[in-house]
């Protein structure tokens, strides 16, 4: 029997809250992969609201399709990120990307700046970077989102993208070069 899942905000075991198996599964996946997956999405969309909607959409899809996940093939990380890829592509098809990002859209930006001034400078720096990121192709944004947003190694990103690690490394290198060019314009 798997050990009970403990949520820091709800110290009692999840099973004690009478959650359904689907809710338990969702909680488990979210706690394991929610943050990297959110960052992967957030690196590629303009606002936290969209990233949150997409993240919720990914987990809803995953729970509904849980039968199609084969645990024998390892952890569900690559499977979840492929669902995220598809959700993101659906979103991109349906909406236009807005490359101009206002500072107000960084309410979800984590920071360790000790003063408000330093936070403001950090936000400006991130805003410039995200603005330049939005001008890149979806392919470039995807590899940067995986390797920096989700902090995967190029080999792990390659597994999600269905390419070799060396190819993912090369793709990342080229994407970073284009990002630097976009920033220097």
């Amino acid at each position, binding site marked *: 029997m798997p050990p009970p899942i403990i*949520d820091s*905000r709800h110290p009692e075991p999840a099973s004690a809250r009478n*959650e*359904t198996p*689907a*809710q338990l599964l*969702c*909680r488990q996946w*979210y*706690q394991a992969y*929610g*943050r990297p997956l*959110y*960052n992967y999405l*957030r*690196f590629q969309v303009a606002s*936290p609201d969209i*990233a*949150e909607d997409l*993240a*919720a*959409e990914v*987990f*809803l*899809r995953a*729970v*509904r399709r849980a039968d199609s996940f084969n645990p024998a093939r390892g952890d569900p990380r690559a499977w979840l990120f492929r669902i995220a890829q598809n959700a993101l592509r*659906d979103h991109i*098809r*349906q909406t236009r990307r807005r490359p101009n990002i206002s500072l107000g859209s960084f309410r*979800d*930006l*984590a920071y360790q700046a000790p003063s408000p001034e330093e936070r403001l400078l950090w936000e400006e*720096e*991130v805003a*410039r*970077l995200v603005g330049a990121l939005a001008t890149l192709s979806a392919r470039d944004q995807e590899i*940067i989102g995986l390797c*920096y*947003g989700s902090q995967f190694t190029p080999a792990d990103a390659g597994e999600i993208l269905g390419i070799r690690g060396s190819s993912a490394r090369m793709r990342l290198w080229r994407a*970073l070069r284009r*990002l*630097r060019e976009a*920033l220097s314009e």
Partner: protein
Amino acid sequence: MRDVHHVLRQMRFEPRSSLLPELLGRVGRGDQPTPPRPYRGRRWRPIGLAAIVTGLLAVFALPRHQVTVDSCCYDLDGGGVPDDGAVVVADRNGRVSRLSVYEDRDTSRTLTEADVVRLVRAGVPMAEHSIHPGFTTIRHCCQDLDGGGPPDDGLLVIATPPDRVHTAAIYELR
């Protein structure tokens, strides 16, 4: 600005803390994920195709705003008798698409089945290869042959009397 790699490494976003409880609530209620909608391009594709087909039909198949002018009766073949007529099909005050020269056999002063058509010219320039010696050029000016209103069109016929029409043309006075 610091190195891109360094900034990217430090960039972290945190989803709001209420996202998980909301998500669990949706899962508990049995909410379904949003079905993927066909994107706008696909939705507009049939409309775009219909517009293209309509445009092509308008250009190539549907009848244009054409006029047919039947002028009778003149001596267009040099036979000495004013028993010939010309039927002009033209865009209104524009390009002539068809020109027929006929002999008004039944004296109806219009082209009928009883008449003899001496020449039909449609669209492209034409002339018979063997123009007999003794041909004559006949002009009739000026009438409204293209339906434009002003009588600024002329009819030119090259014929060998008494009844051989080699070619004909419509011209407009400028």
